Structure formats: C-alpha cells, structure tokens
C-alpha cells in the first residue's frame, strides 16, 4: 500500500520528532508548522508532554482547527488550564521549560538567529522582532530551530542572500557561541542551546563545538544542494541518512487539524509542490 504526503507534512513530522515525552514544551506565535508538530507529538509519541500554546498560553489545548493568527480563542479550546506571560517565562528562567522552537531570517553556523534587523552598520530591513525568543534561547533547556527558506535563489556566490549565514547581522536569539567566541557555559545560561535545525533542505544537529552538522537530507535533496545554499562550509555527519517520512497516522492528524491549510503560508511555492510517496510498511517502521 502507498500513501502520498506533502513536504509540509514531512517537516512537521521532523519537528515533532525533536520533542521528548513528559517535558514542558512551548511553541511561539507565527509558527503553524511548529504548532502542528506539537499536536502530532502529543497525540503520538509524547502523550505526557505539557504542551503550552504560543500567544494564548493554554495548556494541552485540543483546538478544532488551526487559525491564521495565534492569539485566537480557537487555539486554547479544551485546554486543561492556562498560564500567564509572567508564569510562562518564569518557567523558562528557572530551567523548567524543556524545549522551545525558534527561527530567523538569518541563522548562523553556531545557531544564533536574527529576527530583528538586516544591515551591519545601518538598518536596511526592520524585521518584526523576536518576542520572547531572546530570553528563551538562553533559558529553555533545549531549542529546536527551523526555517522554510534555506534554499537560495541561484545567484553568484558573492551576491547570494543566504538564510544560513556565517554571521548574523544581529543576534536576536543566542545559539552556542557569540561572534567573539564566548560560549553559553561561560555566560552561565540555564539552557543547553539549539539541538536541532530543521530546514527545507535537510536536518542538522550541532557538533561538540556547537557548530551546525548536517545529519539528514530528504528523499529529494542532496548534500550538494545544502552546500550550495549555505553561507559557510557545511559539516556533514559520518552517518548521514535520509529523513523519515510521516506515518499515515501523523498525516491524518495534520490534515484533521489544519483543514484551512494555514501551515502552507509558511512554505514557499516550490516547497508546497513537493510530494513524497510513503510505503506503509516503511512508515510504520519509521514511527
């Protein structure tokens, strides 16, 4: 038997697999892929996760569907209880938040991310800002980074606008080390920093130095494509593999929760067209 899935579903599945059971996990706002990933994790391998919804701070909600914005009562329906902004961030500061998800218009090789501004000396592009991401990048026990725009438009190397950069113009959320080499251990932060980076081209972890390392590509991407679209030399893991595809159960959860297709807004047109064939026996094994 065969089933078809989309790239969005593959990426949601990959994000979900970074969640451990029985931990407190928070997703921010403006991130439907992550919202869906947490609901997938909660309904599959992480039933005891404490799921805190971004913007509403509802705990373990069962939303009937995903809405186009995050601070909507749809998204805290069925919640067991709710936190307020102080309590949520206190949980982070005291080291009791297991995982947070962060993204950036620039992500550097140490996992620093920029959602504040582009331009080195002068501000060229003002981005929305990081919400509480700066705080939680330091405080949350683990961070999963993601971006849906790793693939660069073809242009000569010196004029290419990379998403994965050697150095961020501005560091909104802290990764493993600063531009001048200070580590999070030296800074005394509670959190252990970024653990994963899920992109439209591959899945990275971080090596012992805190540098990005390519662990997986997708069935339709290659190490060469990853290298072409990265602004630094890509470190590749010895045991590079191909990312797992979602099980039919996971695909069903995603389609049930997002009938409007809110998560497609996060994907670029090319990535919305990517399709994969899941052989059911493999999918069962992978889940």
């Amino acid at each position, binding site marked *: 038997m065969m089933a078809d899935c989309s790239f969005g579903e593959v990426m949601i599945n990959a994000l979900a697999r970074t969640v451990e059971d029985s931990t407190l996990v928070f997703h921010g706002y403006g991130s439907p892929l992550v919202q869906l990933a947490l609901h997938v994790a909660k309904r599959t391998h992480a039933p005891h996760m404490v799921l805190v919804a971004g913007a509403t701070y509802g705990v373990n909600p069962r939303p009937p569907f995903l809405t186009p914005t995050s601070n909507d009562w749809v998204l805290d329906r069925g919640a067991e209880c709710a936190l307020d902004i102080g309590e949520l961030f206190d949980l982070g500061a005291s080291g009791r938040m297991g995982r947070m998800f962060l993204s950036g218009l620039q992500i550097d090789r140490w996992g620093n991310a920029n959602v504040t501004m582009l331009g080195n000396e002068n501000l060229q592009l003002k981005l929305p800002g990081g919400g509480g991401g700066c705080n939680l990048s330091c405080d949350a026990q683990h961070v999963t980074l993601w971006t849906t725009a790793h693939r660069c438009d073809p242009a000569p190397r010196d004029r290419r606008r990379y998403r994965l950069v050697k150095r961020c113009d501005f560091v909104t959320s802290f990764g493993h080390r600063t531009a001048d080499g*200070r580590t999070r251990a030296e800074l005394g932060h509670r959190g252990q920093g970024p653990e994963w980076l899920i992109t439209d081209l591959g899945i990275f972890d971080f090596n012992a130095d805190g540098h990005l390392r390519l662990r997986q590509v997708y069935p339709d991407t290659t190490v060469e494509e990853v290298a072409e679209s990265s602004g630094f030399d890509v470190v590749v893991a010895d045991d590079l593999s191909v990312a797992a595809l979602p099980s039919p159960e996971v695909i069903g959860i995603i389609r049930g929760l997002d009938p409007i297709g809110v998560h497609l807004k996060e994907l670029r047109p090319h990535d919305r067209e990517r399709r994969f064939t899941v052989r059911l026996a493999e999918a069962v094994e992978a889940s």
Partner: protein
Amino acid sequence: MMQASFPLTADDKRIDLDALAAYVKNGDCLAVGGGLSSRVPMAAVRAILRRGVRGLKVVGSAHGIDIDLLCGGGAIAVSAESYVGFEQDFGMAPNYRRACETGDVKVEDSCCYTVVQQLRAAISGLPFMPIRSVRGSDVGRLNPDYRLMTCPFTGEELTLVPALAPDVALLHAQYGDTHGNLRIEGPPVTDLLFARASRTVVATVEKLVSTEELKELGGANVPYFYVTAIAEVALGAHPTACYPLYAYDRAHTALYYEAAKAGPDAFRRDYLTPFVFDCADHADYLDRIGGAATLTQLASWSESPATWQRLYMDRVS
C-alpha cells in the same frame, strides 16, 4: 508611589472615547493592551491618531496592527516592543518597517521576559530586576540602559533591567463597571502587569455592567483603584478579536495590510483617511466597516466549530 494619585477612588469614572484618548499626551511612554490579533484597544488607538498625538514611545510584548497603525499615522518616535508584525498571516508590518527604516521611529526592541521583569520592578517599587538571559544576544545593544552585575550571593553574572512604569496603559476589556473594575476574559497578555505598573490606566470596555453583574461574570482581574477612566465602546477592539463577543476580522485586516503595503500615500488615501480621520466618531467607523452585518458575521463563531472555521475560510482573501 508610581501613580500620580493613588488609590483612584472616584465612584463614577465614565468618560467618552475622545476624552479617554486625551490622557495620551505627546511624548508619552504608552503601553497598548491586548496582543497580536486579539483584544487590542483599536477604537482608542484611532481616537489618539485623530487627536494628532506625536512622539510616543511604545512598550510591550507581541503587537501588530495597533503599532503599525500608530506608525502609519506618524504618532510614534520610539518602539521598544518585542514584536510588531502580522505573523504568518500577512507577514511584516509595512508602516512599522518603513518608519524604522527611514529613522522616523527609533528602534529599541525589547523581549517579552525583559518587559515582564521591568514591569515587575515598577510594581514592586524596585529600581530594577535581574535576569539571566539576554547576554550573548545583541538585544542589549539596542538597550544601553541595561547593566551587568555580579551576584553577591552566587558570583554569577546577571543582567539588570530598569523599572518600567509606562505613562499610560491603554487597555480594552470585555467588561467593566463605572467604578473602574475591569474583567479581562481569555489570555490577558501583558495587560494585568501594565495595569499595575503604569502611572495612568485608561480602559475601553465592550460592556459596562453593575459591580454585582461583574462578580457574576467571574469578577474583576484589574481592581478599580488602578483605573483612572473607563469608556464603554462596543466593538472597540475591531478589527482584532474580542471574544466571546466577536472574532478577528481577517477581511478588514487584509484591506488594511494591502493599503499599508502599497506605500505611505496609498495608506493615507485608502486607510487613514476613510477609516480614521474622516470618521466623526466610533459609530461612524462601525458604519464604514459594514455595521451590524459585519458584527453579526464576526459573532457567528459561537454557533459551532463549523461556523467558526467558515468565518476564516469565507473571509480568506
């Protein structure tokens, strides 16, 4: 005491919307309530623009159309918000971006927990609060008033953030009474902290009820003695949501966004003029956004999950 006069004990604090907006003066540090597409005091924001207020410094956590509209109307000089955007729904905030990029608005971006700790310092009567985070990021570069200290108990290095007492907190609640008690339903965002930290607190409410009715609804979460003035403004959060009364007006927000994206002239012509400056009052605005028919549609969320979902699907551009 941080408030000009405290406690605020007047028996009847009712005022009209324009008089309420007049509490916001040129150059004030303003905390706008609500967050993203929910329970934002938009009618009051429009009234502030009609008054021609200039030079505001805005502070807070997660914002969108409120700060973008104030930027588009030229009211803001400094933004110390943590986020200003339309999430994945429409993306970046066009007027805010332009104002920051031209230098009309000075960028002093903050982050949510830093704001929380700064408000807590003000609420506690302390000059600062410590936080562990921020170091390692560049956020401190935009906030030269942060300081580092070595903890005298543990020897750890910590960041100190100064107390933040906004001049005015501008809130919108579902319910309130004439005494000034406010009942905010659903996620309070930063409002409960704003109410306790600010020098002046003014609020619009969907419905003024008796103190007894307010208790029956579940009780106040902002006690009256923090509140200076209150105005009943039904649909006062439109086009953001104010559940349980109405959902987010995505179609109007799309219209707003398209006008803002098209540039400052288009924004003035297609949005500021018809929906802010040419509106004689809030009732006039409500006529212009579709009147009772729009309200009926936005209130239909509560009929069933299917009608709730259809609200977004019908109104998705």
